[in-house]
């Protein structure tokens, strides 16, 4: 309450002093943000800090309910009432909708003018926001998937060294063997790790390989290596090191929950979960770890950052917000402080961090157009990238799910088959 009063007084004071001090017209900037939790003091702090650095800009940040954010933006745009200068945008097919609908502008020129050197960052992050060769979405908060969240207290107890970026996959598997706890019957009490996307196990079973185009595959990308990765995961599941999906669901289907309850020692997921893991009573941390072929060490950018409204009157000013919110340490601190996380736990960092570049960049195959092709005429899209019939492709594309041609029937069958196989693995 006290904090709120102080902030309130600061705001009033600032407005008052600014109002008296300058009769000059200030540029107004409206930002639509999408934040988990939408805590109001966070946006207030951001506004104040931004206006301190740019006193001639009057910024307003509005946070939307995350669940319906995209719908809201779409409806506002469709009725011509999208007034914001900057909108938070997501790099999946919805970006296509916005681009094709002409409501956001390319950022390449503004990027050049701003003098940011993006060559040192993982290019894929920028590719994710690129459509028709132009950058439409600037990655402020990309989410590397392949972050291992690990229970530090448990590691201490078992004498396992903490996970670092130098940890190799073999070493990691070794740790998992120590971390997995079984009782006399061989039932697993605590799994070494969880990966929520074991559909890839099934892919491996079907002898999957990755190609560049689902319908006219010409190039095999990381074919054997990919199979090796999936093989790794399957072996881990067979050894009981990795929690199978049915068990995960039976235990409540919540990553923070099973982590806090120490049903798993590590969880491979993306960085965004740090808020959820904060409920664990033990010390934990998170690190990117390269999977054998790095498929999981790569950055999957399904959340992104900023786009600029085509109707904005001040695109350059809008870009100042983009730059500030992404690179300014002050901004990052404010975003961090949103979560009541204990010390020693990971905080909300910008993933455009140079050190991520080393690992993140090497791994994931280029672009989003990766497709896995299995032997039995079953094709898998990990993600899709659209041009033209993207709606159809979205139906057909999910993270590592099998389907046959255009029919969702087969998708359903494939999922059931996967479930059955996993049930078998569990029953053993």
């Amino acid at each position: 309450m006290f904090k709120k009063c102080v902030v309130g007084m600061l705001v009033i004071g600032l407005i008052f002093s600014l109002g008296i001090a300058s009769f000059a017209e200030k540029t107004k900037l409206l930002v639509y943000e999408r934040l988990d939790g939408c805590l109001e003091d966070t946006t207030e702090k951001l506004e104040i800090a931004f206006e301190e650095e740019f006193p001639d800009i009057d910024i307003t940040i509005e946070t939307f309910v995350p669940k319906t954010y995209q719908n809201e933006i779409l409806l506002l745009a469709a009725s011509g009432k999208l007034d914001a200068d900057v909108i938070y945008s997501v790099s999946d097919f919805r970006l296509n909708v916005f681009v094709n609908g002409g409501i956001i502008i390319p950022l390449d020129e503004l990027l050049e003018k701003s003098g940011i050197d993006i060559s040192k960052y993982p290019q894929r992050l920028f590719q994710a926001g690129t459509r028709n060769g132009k950058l439409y979405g600037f990655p402020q908060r990309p989410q590397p998937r392949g972050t291992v969240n690990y229970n530090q207290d448990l590691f201490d107890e078992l004498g396992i060294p903490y996970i670092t970026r130098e940890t190799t996959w073999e070493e990691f598997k070794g740790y998992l063997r120590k971390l997995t706890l079984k009782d006399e019957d061989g039932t697993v009490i605590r799994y070494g790790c969880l990966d929520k996307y074991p559909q890839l196990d099934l892919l491996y079973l079907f002898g999957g390989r990755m190609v560049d185009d689902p319908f006219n595959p010409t190039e095999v990308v990381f074919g054997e290596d990919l199979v090796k990765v999936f093989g790794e995961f399957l072996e881990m599941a067979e050894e009981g090191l990795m929690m199978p999906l049915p068990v995960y669901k039976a235990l409540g289907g919540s990553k923070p929950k099973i982590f806090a309850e120490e049903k798993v020692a590590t969880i491979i997921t993306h960085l965004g979960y740090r808020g959820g893991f904060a409920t664990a009573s033990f010390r934990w941390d998170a690190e990117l770890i390269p999977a054998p072929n790095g498929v999981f060490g790569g950055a999957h950018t399904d959340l992104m950052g900023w786009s600029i409204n085509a109707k904005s009157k001040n695109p350059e000013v809008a870009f100042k917000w983009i730059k500030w919110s992404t690179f300014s340490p002050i901004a990052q601190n404010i975003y961090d402080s949103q979560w009541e996380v204990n010390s020693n736990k990971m905080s909300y960092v910008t993933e455009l961090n140079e050190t991520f570049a080393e690992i993140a960049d090497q791994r994931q195959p280029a672009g989003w157009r990766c497709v896995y092709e299995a032997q039995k005429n079953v094709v898998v899209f990990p993600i899709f990238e659209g041009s033209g019939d993207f709606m159809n492709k979205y139906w057909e594309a999910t993270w590592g799910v099998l389907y046959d041609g255009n029919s969702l029937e087969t998708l359903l069958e494939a999922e059931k088959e996967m479930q059955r196989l996993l049930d078998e693995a569990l029953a053993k």
Partner: protein
Amino acid sequence: MKLKLTFNYLFLIVFAIVALFPFYWMFTTAFSQHTFISDPQIIPIPFYSGAIRDVVFRHSFLRWIFNTALITGIAAIGNVLVASLAAFAFACIRFKGRDLIFYVLLSTMILPGFLMIVPRFFIMAKLGWLDTYQGVFVVFWFVMFSTFLLRQYYLSISSDTLNAARIDGCSLWKMYTKLILPMSKPVLLTLFIIRFVQVWNSFLWPVIVLRSNQMKTLTVGMSEFYGIYMTEYNKIMAGGLISLIPIILIFIFFAKQIEKGLQFQLKT
């Protein structure tokens, strides 16, 4: 007879426990540190008031309560009035096309609300009513549910009474205000309560229309607690409990009238 009575009570008590246990659980979760649903704590230890504190102070919770109360009140009252006007005509007056119009209007209830959100949103955008109170409550005024219910009740009013009133020189409007309204006050109150609760808990429409933090209603504001990565169940339960309070207050306040309403008898 006594056996039947005790059996009756037993049944009611069991049902009441079943009905109340979830609320007890909501209460304990709201005061726990859990941000996920796990085994319910029967005794709220450790007692953690952080969720409640967060909900009330780090968000504009009190403002949300005000917004919700305002919107819901106006929506419910307006709907009851408009509906009773129409229901009176549909039930008690013979006019050309009455049944056809009634059933056609009724069909508008069938299409799910979220499909109609898109066109309604465009209407509100054109009117400039986005992110306003009226953008929300006006839609709730025109719902056939209330007309339907009131019509079923008004059907029992005999024409003789109305014709007698006419002979006395009553116009339709006088009939409505002097006869129907007073007579059906209890039902209207019941309907008001029903609509109040329905609008209070509504989510799909307000979340699309209302944007700024200052304008959000309770359901909208609380949906922020459903994050992408982490769902703060303790806050959700805390918010749920707090949003129950105004409704419970209304129930208590109107308890007497509700009781009377459930006892009302139509004049024959």
